């Protein structure tokens, strides 16, 4: 059986300069309490890996607003004026990655692959600096794995064994990121007894979850 820690305890685990993956898509399914706490305690020089930067106030924006990130790896920053401003001003290093490539690179990092070969981005700016290989006469980009020190994810339900279930579009990058970090911290919406999530519905087995953030009181 697992136990829970507070959001303050969880944030304290993450040092300045850490690389952190943040689940969420346009802020839906993002670990909001952890993100706001990290911003509040003034973490610096973080490398943030997130599908997108969502609109102001959502997703990674609270961290961007206080200049907590030195680097951002994402597929889309179009809804966050602050992310765009910092990028154009050179205040933050931004690596833009096609979304399907981003999720495959994170998955590769999580499942022990040395990378994947994707046709996405061949002949575009996304090819810059990438190795190209021909497989059966077609060109593919060699895309390397991405891992992080911490994965901060959210989920719908969590049982006492740490098994996680997600719901609707709040699933997104969360289960993949749960595989690809040294330390996995989850912020569940609900806690349920073991058995409420049937084995067939578990999307992230509790065995790979390191810390669980308890409910806000």
């Amino acid at each position, binding site marked *: 059986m697992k136990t829970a820690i507070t959001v303050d305890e969880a944030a304290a685990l993450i040092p300045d300069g850490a690389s952190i993956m943040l689940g969420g898509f346009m802020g839906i399914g993002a670990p909001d309490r952890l993100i706001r706490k990290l911003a509040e305690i003034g973490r610096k020089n973080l490398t943030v890996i997130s599908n997108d930067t969502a609109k102001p106030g959502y997703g990674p924006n609270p961290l961007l607003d206080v200049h907590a990130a030195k680097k951002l790896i994402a597929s889309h920053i*179009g809804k966050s004026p602050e992310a*765009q401003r910092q990028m154009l001003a050179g205040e933050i290093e931004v690596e833009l990655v096609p979304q*399907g490539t981003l999720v495959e690179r994170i998955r590769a990092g999580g499942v022990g692959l040395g990378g994947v070969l*994707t046709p*996405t981005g*061949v002949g575009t*700016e996304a090819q810059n600096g990438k190795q190209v290989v021909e497989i059966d006469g077609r060109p593919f980009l060699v895309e390397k794995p991405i891992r992080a020190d911490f994965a901060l994810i959210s989920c719908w339900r969590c049982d006492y064994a740490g098994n996680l279930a997600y719901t*609707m579009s709040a699933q*997104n990058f969360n289960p993949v990121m749960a595989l690809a970090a040294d330390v996995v911290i989850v912020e569940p919406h609900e806690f349920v007894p073991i058995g409420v999530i049937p084995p067939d519905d578990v999307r992230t087995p509790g065995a790979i979850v390191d810390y669980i953030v308890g409910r806000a009181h």
Partner: protein
Amino acid sequence: MNSKEMIARRIAQELRPGMLANLGIGIPTLVSEFVPENHGVFFQSENGVVGLGHRPPEGMEDFDLTDAGGTFVMAVPGAAAIDSALSFGLIRGGHLDVTVLGGMQVDERGYLANWMIPGKRVAGMGGAMDLVQGAKKVIVAMEHTAKGQPKIVRECDLPVTGVRRVSLVVTELAVIEPTDDGLLLRERGPGVSVSAILEATAARLIVPEMVPEMRF
């Protein structure tokens, strides 16, 4: 009927029951409004929903269910929720019958540019590069010109989204099909003359004898 609605209505005609279709942000999203809920096409969105529905009744939003633009939607009966790896697996793996994408430029090669204006707007490509690469059919939905400047050009000067020829370009003035020989003018907007289309287009167009009007 304004330009955007006209484009969306015309593209809605391309959707067939049983198809798996993805709609980008902007005009493409409008397309679903002209498809009846019981039509039988399944809308997929990058954020992992297969079977996106219309907007929910006010006050009945599920905070964990939006389209890829972050707008609250419903799911239709028979919907499925999947993670981003499978969502893009469907896209890149050729399981998507059609994607409708917004465009900044399309050129004579049929290449689309829709993800960045160097030095100005840097949105990021999001899922666009995977969609252009992977969908069986790529339809571009865009207004024919931007601030009076043609968006259909000889060769994109904006960074392209992919080096694959798109299937169809639909604007309020024309339906254009990129082919081996170049851009083929298929249809004209209601009451729009061929010469008006040529004037608003920087690319060379192949113009057949007969160019029928779009029908709605």
